[in-house]
């Protein structure tokens, strides 16, 4: 898993729960990397799982809420860190469709060994869409947070309904419904 996700996670924990909570979960999780993450490196995704589980235990916040919250935080960071990817993009669906077709392609150029999830978007006739997530890693929750962050970023009134998926979080599908714009 890309180092950036770890560094952003630690950053979020430090900002939200404090430096000691971050140090605590790192220590408690007994991580192979010792919690020393750099954005340009790659780390075992299980370290992330360990830290998230430790955080949930430490804070008492349910695990799905944590991962979803991290996803929303992460999308906000992306928009800050990589504004190039947002140029000319005007809607949430537009962005979501670009993940597989463009963003992941560009990522692979820098990190040929990166294992990236597959995100496919099927637009529906009624203006909505069905979004499918498949990955070797169980981060459907993070993905859901990312989607929500995306919708939030573009300020659109779209509801997200989890429709199907795997227990372990490697596969999930959502129905995105465009709601009437408030007057």
């Amino acid at each position, binding site marked *: 898993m890309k180092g950036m996700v770890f560094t952003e996670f630690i950053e979020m924990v430090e900002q939200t729960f404090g430096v000691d909570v971050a*140090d605590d979960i790192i220590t408690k999780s007994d991580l192979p990397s010792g919690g*020393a993450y*750099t954005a340009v490196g790659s780390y075992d995704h299980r370290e992330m799982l360990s830290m998230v589980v430790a955080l949930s235990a430490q804070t008492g916040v349910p695990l799905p809420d944590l991962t979803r919250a991290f996803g929303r935080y992460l999308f906000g960071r992306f928009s800050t860190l990589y504004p190039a990817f947002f140029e000319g993009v005007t809607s949430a669906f537009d962005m979501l469709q670009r993940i597989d077709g463009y963003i992941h392609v560009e990522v692979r150029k820098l990190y040929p060994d990166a294992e990236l999830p597959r995100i496919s978007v099927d637009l529906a006739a009624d203006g909505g869409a069905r979004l499918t997530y498949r990955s070797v890693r169980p981060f459907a929750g993070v993905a859901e947070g990312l989607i929500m962050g995306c919708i939030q970023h573009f300020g659109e009134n779209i509801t997200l309904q989890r429709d199907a998926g795997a227990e372990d979080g490697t596969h999930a599908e959502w129905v995105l419904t465009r709601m009437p714009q408030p007057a």
Partner: protein
Amino acid sequence: MTDIDLNQHIALLNRRLERERKARKEAEMLLESKSLALYRANTALQQLAEDLEGRVRDRTAELQDRERLLDEAQRIGQFGHWRWESESNATIWSDELYHLYGYAPGEVTPSQDAVLTRLAPEERDLWERRWFEAVESGAASYEIAPRMILPDGRVRHLAETGRLIRDEHGRLIGAIGVVQDVTARVEADSRLALLADITRSIANLVIVADSTSAITYVSESVRAILGYEPEEIMGEGWWRIPRLTTPRQLAEEREYVKRAARGEVASDPVPHEHALRHKDGSLRWLLIGDAKGPGDLVIGVCTDITERKLAENALRENEQRFRNFVESADDMIYRTDRDGRFTYANPVAMRIMGFTSEADFVGRRFVDFIRSDMRGAVRRKYAEQFVKRTQNTYHEIPVITSDGRELWMGQNVQVLLENEEVAGFQAVVRDLTERKAMEQRLAEAHDRALEASRLKSEFLAMMSHEIRTPMNAVIGMNELLLETSLDERQCELASVALVSAQSLLSLINDILDFSKIEAGRMTMERVAFDIASVVAASVNIVKPKAQEKQLPLSVTLPDDLPAHVLGDPSRLRQVLLNLLSNAVKFTHSGEVRVEVAVLASEDTRLRCRFAVIDSGIGLSESAQRRLFQPFVQADGSITRRYGGSGLGLAISRKLVELMGGEIGVESQAGAGTRFFFEVVFEQMPAHLRVSRAEAAMPFQMAAAEAQEEAAQPAAAELPAPSIAIGAPVLLVEDNPANQRLTTLQLKKMGYSVDLAGNGIQALDMLRKRSHAGGAYRLVLMDCQMPEMDGFTATREIRKFEAPSGVRTPIIAMTANAMRGDREACIEAGMDDYISKPVRLKALTEAVQRWMTTSVAPASAIDEAAWRDLWVR
């Protein structure tokens, strides 16, 4: 914060710092390795870019080279190419293609229109169609040979091959094509084809021989000219054709061909004649000329001049023949130029004209030799022939030859025309001197003969008149003598004298008739008459003789015999009388019959047969054959026994023939004879036609009358004078014997007779009597008299009578038994006609006819009336 807390916090920050440091170092390491990799990649990339640049440069240069080469090749090979891309619809032409299409490179944007503009109009459709067909059929390529008309009017033939390029789905994505200028080839091909056609079609025979004199080509006309197939001629075949050439000449000829093929001798511009045999054996004349061909070849052109040769030979033969003919002709033949000056004269001309050499006549003119008195006339005639271009004239001309002889020449002159211009004259001249002399003699002889003939005619006419006149007197006097009282001896002598005189007259009449027939001067009359009356009258004449011999005479007439026909009654009577006389003469016992039959009654013609049948001595076959020839009798003894001129049957035959019929005889010696003749009469016009049955006087009456008449004795024949007793009659007659005879006859009939010796006296007496208030009841007029003849006298009398309206009957008495007398009499104004010598009976009838018309026989009235109507 407590110390513990502080320590714990410091420991926490240390851990965090440691983690940050560790992360930084890892990041540095990672970045370093990344940048190294990047540097390497960049270096490799740079290397690659450099390599690529060099290759592109090389390839570009190579491509430019190739393009230049291609352009050059296209220029040399006169072919261009084009390329078309479907997606951009762009077409590219090579420079040479522009040239081929007649454009300067880049002058136009390559397009279909730019090509179509140049295409010959009739090619445009095909050009477009061929492209679309290839596109639609999925073909990989197509070919077309369009013809372009360049702006300067030149024609350019192109050959184009197009290849169509398709993607994996078969969609057309482009095409390329190569276009080549094949004008030279097409023109050469067409020239070759034309040449082949010409060689095939010309009548001339073309042969090509190589330097071994073997034939390598022969045109197909060899078949027509020499009868061989071309393959038979190839190689040595030509030299094996039989010909009128000696082996040595042939060898020389072959040698010449070999050298000509090698170009060692200049070809002879004058063609030579060769006589070769056609395959069928006939001789063919060829005029062969040769020309150096390409390589070691010589071309021979042979013209078939056989016909010309034959014509030339024929002409030469003709000329020779003509020359021989002219040179050996019996006639003089010469030619002149247009001025009439001699250019040629054959040997006969030389001889006739007295020339000794050409110098004697060349430059001189024929007219100069013409006898001077005729020269002008002849010259005018030939001038006329010259102007009118009369093809042929004939004149007989007197000529004085150069040695002074006068000759008559019959000259046929033809105008010689050259291009419609008179080039001269050609004459065939015959020496007529002999003929002229003979003609002269002949003309004189002819004149003499004519004179003799005229004298003879005059003599005959005179004799006729001169003999008949005394005969008239002899017979008449004898008749009168017999009516005086004579003793038996005197009566017998007078009778013999009368019979002899009558025989003599008959003989003379026969001879006269016969000579008239022989002279072709006997013509037939055409008057209306009654056949039955003629038959009856004829029978009546011989009846006395028959009665003497106690021979019954019978007549059979058909019912359908018309009352009248048109013809010559006196000639019919003559023939009948001749046959009846013979029948009575040669029959001693038994009977004589006359049978008349109508053979054919047509609208305009009536064919009758008359038969006279006797039971007399008959005729032998040989006698029958000779019978109708003149001066022949059945046998010589007959003349002695029965008398006669022997002309009767010959005359009869001629008369029958003149009447359109023929005469015949059937007989056996001793068993009687049947003479018969058929004659043709003209029918009366339909509205005047009546049958005898309808006629006023049926034959029975005529026959009965004849019977009655015949039964009377001779003296009783004279009818009693009726109302005419003492009636004045003027007799005009110059001959004293006849004056006396006729006066006696008339007085016997009871008339008072005045006598005039010629026409003038007659006219005088008529006038005197008229002035005295009287008139003659009748005039008897002799025709031939001195001072004024009967015709003139009659005309004068009629002139004199004209104002008073009186018309005295005038009866002609003429010894002129010649044809035409009757017409002459009628024309002169006379009313009737009796022939001399005047028989009492004929005179009585004629006089009574005009004195007492009321008692005249019906037939006589008819005859006179018809005669006026019908005599032409």
